[in-house]
C-alpha cells in the first residue's frame, strides 16, 4: 500500500472519516483507530512481520515502565541493555547477519584461511530500522530522565507503529509524538489544508521528478561501462536529484497525512540543496535521522573524546557517519558513503565552522555569488557520495569514478532517453528547485501564502495534479528508502 496507490487512497479516506466522525469523542477511541489502522497498513505489506512489530512494542513498553520504576542505577542500565539488545539484535539478525558473516569470511580468506559460515535466507521486515530507532530512543530518554515512561500501552504501541511514518520515517522521538498521542486531537483546518498541500507537493516530487529521473539513472548506472564521463556525471546529478525528490517526497506525504489526522511530526528535509557546507546539508537532509544520531551517538562520543580536542571531534563525527552509512543497509558502499561524509566534516572541524549557521540570501531574491558557489560546491560533494550510495558494490563505485574522471568527461554527453528526455526533465527539476527556493523559509515547497485569490491558488493545485497525471510513471515504483 504505497502512499501513491489507490489502495492507500481508499484506506486513508475511510480512516479519516472514521477518525473525525466516529472516534472523535475521546483520545482512547482515536488511539484505538490509529493502532488498528497502523497494524492493518503494516499487515497489508506482509502480515507475518506484524508479530515482530508487536513484540518490539510490548517488550519496550514493559522495559520503559521498569526502567522508570527502578531506582538502582545498575538495574536501570541492565534493563536498558536488554532493550538495546532486543532492538539491535533484531537489526543484526534481519539486516546485517549475512553482511557480517560474508565480510568475516572474506577477511579470513584474504589470509588464505577458508572459513565457511552458512548465511541465512531472510527478508528484512519493512520499516525495521525506523521503528527500532524509535524504541531505542524511547528507552534511552527514560534512562536519562528526559521523559517519563508512558503508562498507556496503546499510546506506546501507536507511537511505534504510527502508520504515516512507519515504513520510511521520519523517525520521531518519543517526546515529540507521545505527548500528541496522549491528548485528544482536535481538527485544525489550517493544519489539515496545509497537510493536503504538502501531500500534493510530495506526490509531485515523487512521481514526476524522482520516477522520471529513475528511468534515466537506472539505465546509466546499470550500464555505466558503455557511457562517457560526461554522461556519467549527468547520471550522478540525476541520481542525487532522484534521491532527494523520492525521499523528501515521501516525507512530505508522511507529514501531510499526519497533519490531516491532527499530528505534527518531525520535519525531515529543509531544502538541503540550498546548503552552504556539508554540516548545514546534514542539518537539512534526513533531519530526523541526523538529530537522532547527533543526540545518541555524536554527542556522547564527543563528550567521551573531549580530551582529544578537535581530534576527538573528528573521531566522533567519523564514527557517527559510519553508523549513519551502515544504517542504510548491509553493504560496504554505505559504510564508504558514511565515511566520505565524515571526512567532508574535517575541514569544518579544523576551521571551527561546523556549527556556524547562516541564512542564505537573507531577504534577497538571489544568493550572492559566493553563496551560490558554496551551494554548488556542497551539491557536487554530496553528488559524488551518491555514486557510492547507488553502486552495487565498492568495485562498481570505483569503476564508475574511474570512467567519470577519464578524458571522456570532456565530451558531449549522450544521455539515454527515459520516459522524458533529459532536457524536459531538467525543465521540471529547475521548476522544482525554483519553487523550493522561493519558499525556502517555509515548511514545504507548496505553502502558497503569496497567492491570495482562491481560484488562482486552486488553479495552481489543479495544474500540479494535471502534471502528475500527464508525466507520472504508470507502473508502481516503490520509494527508495523503503529498503532501508
Amino acid at each position, binding site marked *: 500500500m504505497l502512499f501513491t496507490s489507490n489502495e492507500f487512497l481508499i484506506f486513508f479516506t475511510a480512516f479519516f472519516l472514521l477518525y473525525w466522525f466516529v472516534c472523535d469523542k475521546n483520545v482512547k477511541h482515536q488511539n484505538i483507530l490509529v493502532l488498528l489502522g497502523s497494524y492493518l497498513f503494516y499487515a497489508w505489506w506482509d502480515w507475518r512481520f506484524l508479530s515482530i512489530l508487536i513484540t518490539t512494542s510490548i517488550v519496550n513498553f514493559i522495559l520503559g515502565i521498569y526502567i522508570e520504576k527502578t531506582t538502582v542505577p545498575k538495574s536501570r542500565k541492565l534493563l536498558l541493555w536488554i532493550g538495546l539488545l532486543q532492538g539491535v539484535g533484531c537489526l543484526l539478525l534481519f539486516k546485517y547477519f549475512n553482511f557480517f558473516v560474508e565480510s568475516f569470511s572474506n577477511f579470513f580468506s584474504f589470509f588464505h584461511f577458508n572459513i565457511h559460515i552458512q548465511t541465512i535466507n531472510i527478508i528484512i521486515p519493512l520499516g525495521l530500522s525506523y521503528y527500532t530507532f524509535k524504541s531505542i530512543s524511547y528507552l534511552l530518554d527514560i534512562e536519562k530522565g528526559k521523559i517519563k515512561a508512558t503508562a498507556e500501552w496503546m499510546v506506546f504501541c501507536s507511537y511505534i507503529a504510527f502508520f504515516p511514518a512507519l515504513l520510511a520515517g521520519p523517525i520521531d522521538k518519543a517526546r515529540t509524538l507521545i505527548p500528541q498521542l496522549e491528548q485528544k486531537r482536535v481538527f485544525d483546518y489550517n493544519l489539515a489544508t496545509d497537510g493536503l498541500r504538502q501531500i500534493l507537493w510530495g506526490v509531485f516530487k515523487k512521481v514526476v521528478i524522482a520516477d522520471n529521473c529513475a528511468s534515466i539513472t537506472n539505465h546509466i548506472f546499470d550500464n555505466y561501462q558503455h557511457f562517457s564521463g560526461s554522461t556519467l556525471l549527468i547520471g550522478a546529478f540525476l541520481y542525487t536529484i532522484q534521491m532527494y525528490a523520492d525521499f523528501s517526497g515521501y516525507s512530505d506525504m508522511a507529514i501531510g497525512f499526519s497533519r490531516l489526522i491532527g499530528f505534527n511530526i518531525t520535519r525531515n528535509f529543509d531544502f538541503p540543496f540550498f546548503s552552504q557546507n556539508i554540516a548545514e546539508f546534514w542539518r537539512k537532509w534526513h533531519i530526523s535521522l541526523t538529530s537522532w544520531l547527533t543526540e545518541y551517538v555524536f554527542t556522547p562520543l564527543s563528550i567521551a573524546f573531549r580530551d582529544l580536542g578537535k581530534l576527538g571531534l573528528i573521531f566522533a563525527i567519523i564514527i557517527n557517519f559510519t553508523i549513519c552509512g551502515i544504517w542504510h543497509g548491509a553493504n560496504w558502499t554505505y559504510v564508504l558513503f558514511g565515511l566520505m561524509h565524515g571526512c567532508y566534516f574535517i575541514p569544518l572541524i579544523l576551521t571551527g565552522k561546523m556549527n556556524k549557521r547562516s541564512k542564505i540570501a537573507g531577504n534577497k531574491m538571489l544568493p550572492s555569488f559566493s553563496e551560490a558557489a558554496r551551494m554548488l560546491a556542497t551539491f557536487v560533494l554530496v553528488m559524488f557520495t551518491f555514486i557510492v550510495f547507488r553502486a552495487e558494490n565498492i568495485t562498481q563505485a570505483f569503476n564508475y569514478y574511474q570512467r567519470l574522471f577519464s578524458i571522456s568527461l570532456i565530451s558531449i554527453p549522450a544521455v539515454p532517453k527515459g520516459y522524458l528526455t533529459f532536457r524536459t526533465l531538467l525543465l521540471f527539476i529547475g521548476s522544482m528547485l525554483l519553487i523550493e527556493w522561493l519558499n525556502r523559509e517555509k515548511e514545504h515547497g507548496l505553502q502558497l501564502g503569496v497567492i491570495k485569490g482562491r481560484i488562482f491558488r486552486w488553479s495552481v493545485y489543479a*495544474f500540479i495534479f*494535471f502534471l502528475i*497525471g*500527464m*508525466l*507520472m510513471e*504508470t507502473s508502481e515504483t516503490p520509494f527508495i528508502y523503503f529498503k532501508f
Partner: protein
Amino acid sequence: MKKFLANVLLFIPFLLTSYFIFLIAWGSFAPGHLRKNLIYGIGGYANMYSRICEAKKMHNVDILFLGASHTYRGFDPRIFKAYGYNTFNLGSPNQTPLQTEILLERYLSNLNPKLIIYEVHPWPFLLDGVESALDLLANDKIDMSSVKMALTLNNVKAYNTLIYSWYRQLFDLDNGFKEEMKKEDDTYISGGYVEKKLSFNSPEAEKKEEIPVTLAHWKPKAYQLIAFERILKIIKDKNIEMVFVQAPVTKMVFNVFDGNDKFDAFISSKTDHYINFNYLMKLDDSLDFFDSHHLNQQGVRVFNEALLKGKETQLHNKVLMTHASFKK
C-alpha cells in the same frame, strides 16, 4: 471540519473541470515529448484507423481474423482471396482479449463472418492491454465500452487518451484525416493486413534482444481471462464456427517459452479446434521471418497456404474444408 469538507467537495469538480481544460490545451499545443501519458496516435503504426474505417463498410465476410501482430501481419487477405475466400483482418498491435471483445461487439454484426480464426499466443494474456487500448481509443469511436475498458485498465494513459479522443470526436476534429497507406517498410493492404517489405530475420542479432522472462511462467491476467471467456460466449451465442490457431514464431522464441504445454492445454480446454502451427510447420528462423516473432511475406504465404490446403493436419482439414456453411 465542515468548512474543510465543503472545500474538498468544491475542489473536486473544480479539479475535474480544470484537468479536462488542461488536457485539451496540452494535447493540442504541447510538444510530443511533454505528452508522456497522452498517447493519441491516430492511424498509429499499424494502420488501425484504416482498418476500422474498412471494418465499418465490410459486410458478410467468409473469414474474420482476430488477434495481435501475428494476426495483422500473418493472414494475408490476398492469398485467401486467391482461394475464393472473402476475409477481413481485425488484428492490431498487442491486441489483448480485452480489445478483441470490444472489436467483436462493435463489428461482428456487420462483418457477419462464417468462420472466425482467432490467433492466440500466450503473450497477450500477460499484457495489461494499455498499448492496444490506446490504439483503439484513438482510432475508433468512444462509447461506454471504451469507458469500461479504461476503468478495467485503471491506467492514467488510458484515462487521458479516452478524454482527449472523446473531445476530438465530439468536435469532429479529425474529419478529413487521411492515413498514409505506406509507412516506412509497412504497406497497408485492403482487408486489414499489413505487409512488411521483404526482409530476413538475423537470429544472431535477435539473440541480443531480451526474451521477456515473464513468458517463462504463464500466469495470465485475471481480467484478460474474463474477457476471453466473454469472447467465447459472444461467438457461441452468434453460432459462428471458430478456429484457434497459434501462428509460427522462430524456434528460438518458441523454445524459450517453457509454458507451451500449459498454454496449449488451456486453449484445448476451451475448444476442439486449436492448431498450434509451431508443431506442424518447419520454417526457417532466418528465411521465413523478418524478426523473431513475425513471418515475412514469404513465410506468410507458406503459413496461409498450409492453413488453406490442410495437408499437414487432419484437424484444420476437417474444420476448414468440410464445414458445410463455409465451403463455397
